[in-house]
């Protein structure tokens, strides 16, 4: 069964706006990762946040983690058309096996 689920399923914004995507998960984790996928092929790792971290930044990306609510958010600031992609969160499967499992993703479209 899927550990993490992204919300919303789809997001459409104008270039320059901020995009926020959320991920909820079910069991305790030691880390959570966000990935990006273009055109339904390979995924690219964006950022990893550990369970003892609350916020992490990478360029225009900001990730937060709230372990009490079992949720994370990915914020992309000043979006660009090139940010158009699907975004997935990945969390270890329950039971500590540390196999990252993925939700269905958020499909982001940034209109120029």
């Amino acid at each position, binding site marked *: 069964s899927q550990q993490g689920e992204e919300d919303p399923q789809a997001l459409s914004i104008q270039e320059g706006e901020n995009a926020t995507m959320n991920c909820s998960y079910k069991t305790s984790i030691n880390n959570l990762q966000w990935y990006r996928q273009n055109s339904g092929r390979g995924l690219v790792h964006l950022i990893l946040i550990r369970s003892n971290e609350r916020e992490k930044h990478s360029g225009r990306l900001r990730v937060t983690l709230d372990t009490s609510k079992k949720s994370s958010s990915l914020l992309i600031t000043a979006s660009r058309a090139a940010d158009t992609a699907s975004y997935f969160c990945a969390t270890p499967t329950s039971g500590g096996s540390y196999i990252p*499992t993925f939700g*269905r993703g958020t499909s982001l479209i940034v209109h120029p």
Partner: protein
Amino acid sequence: GAGVSQSPSNKVTEKGKDVELRCDPISGHTALYWYRQSLGQGLEFLIYFQGNSAPDKSGLPSDRFSAERTGGSVSTLTIQRTQQEDSAVYLCASSLLAGGNEQFFGPGTRLTVL
């Protein structure tokens, strides 16, 4: 350096045929994962190899699916007697270590079963 490579990039086969999909992980990566992704869906975990340990096959959907990893490097995913519902993009990923480390994905193999 070279990333994860997969071959073929596209495969069209007839129902009932066997197919082999290949994954070349990044050199030195001990963990290797296979996922599949149906159109518009998330990634479904299939199988995981870690070093010389027995693989975690808990995600394989049926006994028609099997995978090997030879010499701790190249992996082959075999689907026997393919069915139309096997049509998907099959993604391979490797990571330096296990334990939820960053995964590096290959470009995937798009399998179409007619």
